[in-house]
């Protein structure tokens, strides 16, 4: 098991450094120093070189314990916290986490060693407080939310997670054929005459797609990850582990081929819709033939910032996700049937009263 772990320490006081989205810098909680990511990267690159030269012994945790089954053990990783020496246990897809004892943010670069290294990362711009605030806003004006959900529903856990995404660049070449009709009618003498003109409509063309995202982490619910799109790709940065401290980071466990099916479905749907948008002016249009070739020119791998918020209410779990860059928060809420029918009745009675006044009194 790999055990090489890193937490970034302040060059001035050795306190833990955390990446702060608002400033875009690594900041020390103790002496309040702040450093550019590039500066710390260079500093730690130098340190790693020196460590390699010194050939320091590496810890081997594989023999610790013994109660895990082989299957469980295969998915567990244990590391020593470089700040306090405590043992960190996490699964094999966790690339960054925090020490539960000293709270120091820790990065496990070796987690990327046997898999692809991300091409890009979008750093967190919004902090935990913003996520809590967004969740409260999410409850706002939800008329069917059960009474007490807002108060009794305490946030169990909030995690800032870098989620692995595959970004598909591609192009679809399509040929579409439709049968279309234009219907017109007029009256001549005692006859109503309806003319229906039939057309054969053909379209050929291409649609380019840039960085269609599909999350590559099986533990992240697909609907949640889709719903918090889009990300602002202008803020994509070349990957650096210096952006990870302070957050959980997953590496992909669904490969690029598996995830391409979801990307393809979305690309096909958009292509069909765009082509159909060029057939306006007819009374009705029916697609009769469709041929499409999808060309994936490039796939890149990126880590995207996501705040996951877990709550529990009346024994049921509720999961919310917030885009750590844009602040878009989504998550399903329970519907109180009593409130639903209460609102239905209120709207019904109000509308009926207004109609009754209009129809029976004013008329």
């Amino acid at each position, binding site marked *: 098991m790999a055990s090489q772990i890193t937490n970034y320490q302040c060059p001035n006081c050795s306190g833990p450094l955390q990446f702060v989205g608002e400033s875009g810098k690594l900041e020390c909680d103790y002496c309040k120093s702040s450093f550019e990511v590039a500066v710390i990267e260079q500093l730690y690159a130098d340190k790693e070189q020196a460590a390699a030269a010194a050939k320091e012994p590496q810890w081997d945790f594989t023999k610790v314990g013994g109660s895990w089954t082989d299957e469980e053990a295969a998915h567990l990783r244990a590391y020593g916290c470089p700040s306090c020496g405590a043992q960190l246990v996490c699964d094999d897809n966790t690339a960054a986490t925090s020490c539960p004892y000293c709270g120091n943010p820790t990065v496990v670069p070796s987690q990327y060693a046997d898999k692809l290294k991300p091409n890009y990362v979008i750093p967190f711009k919004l902090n935990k407080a913003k996520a809590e605030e967004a969740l409260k806003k999410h409850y706002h004006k939800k008329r069917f939310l059960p009474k007490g959900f807002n108060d009794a529903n305490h946030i169990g856990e909030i995690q800032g997670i870098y989620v692995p995404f595959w970004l598909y660049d591609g192009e679809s070449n399509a040929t579409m054929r439709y049968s279309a009709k234009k219907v017109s009618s007029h009256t001549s003498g005692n*006859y109503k005459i309806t003319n229906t003109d039939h057309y054969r409509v053909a379209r*050929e063309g291409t649609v380019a797609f840039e960085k269609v995202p599909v999350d590559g982490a099986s533990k992240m619910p697909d609907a949640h990850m889709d719903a918090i799109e889009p990300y602002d790709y202008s803020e994509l940065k070349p990957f650096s582990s210096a952006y990870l401290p302070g957050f959980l980071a997953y590496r992909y466990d669904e490969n690029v081929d598996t995830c391409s099916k979801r990307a393809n479905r979305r690309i096909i*749907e958009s292509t069909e819709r765009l082509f159909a948008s060029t057939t306006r002016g007819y009374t009705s249009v029916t697609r009769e033939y469709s041929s499409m070739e999808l060309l994936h020119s490039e796939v890149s791998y990126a880590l995207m910032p996501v705040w996951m918020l877990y709550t529990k209410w009346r024994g049921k779990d509720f999961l919310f996700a917030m885009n750590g860059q844009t602040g878009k928060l989504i998550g399903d809420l329970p519907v109180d049937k009593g409130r639903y029918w209460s609102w239905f009745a209120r709207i019904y009675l109000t509308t009926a009263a207004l109609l009754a006044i209009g129809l029976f009194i004013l008329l």
Partner: protein
Amino acid sequence: MKKTGSVFLLLSILLTVIAPAAFATEAAVDNWDYINDWAYLLNEAQMWDLELRAADISQRYQCGIFVFTIKNMYDLNVGYLYDDGDAYVFNKALYEGFGLGHGGDGSCLILCLSMDGRDYWLEPYGYGKTAFNSYGIDRMLDGHVLPRLKANDYYGAFSAYLNVAEEYLRMARDGAPFSKETDPVAIRDAFRARMGVTLLLPALVAWIVCAIWKRQMKTAVLAKSADAYVPQGGFALTSQSDVFLYRTTTRVKVESSSSSSRSSSSSSGSSGRGGKF
């Protein structure tokens, strides 16, 4: 001109052939029966029953309620002048030629049937125009008289005609002639329509609003398209064609109301109505 001349011709024949007793009298109405069944649609008892009732109504309200039935205009030896509209011409001829009706304004309501062509014409005159407006005549014919005529229930049709005429006259005497505003059936239908709208439309509105609000509770949904990832200018058509193939045409005959019935109107707003039954 042709029609006016024809009417006078008809009148002259009527005066000499059918109703010599009615000729040249000021109180013409006194010399006419109210139920004149020259097509022999009623038996004796039915005719007397109707006659007594019609006379009673006419006298009480001073508005003659007449029925005339004939087989056709050829019986009157003037049929060659008219292709259709026997009942209409007959109706006009009766009123204009014999001064049927009560009072100075000749108040009456005349229903004429010409049986060979199954034509009918119903027209109010004088004060009758107030009691029997076009709405009332439509309701009387469509709701009471025509269905029975079509079923060859002539006694039933004339009986209903008298009943409805009496009701309209009573309402007119009371100051509220039968109209859409005073018709109990129309009022009931309008009330039901309004109640229907008042009960159903709010349910639809409430359902739509609640559906929108409920949808806001479920926001974690899979993305179906990738529209947001098409760059500007990323969609380009390399070829397109819209080829006209052929045209299909359908003709549907529009049934106009005049084909089965027609109406006349006067400046007072009251009108007669006729057609086939």
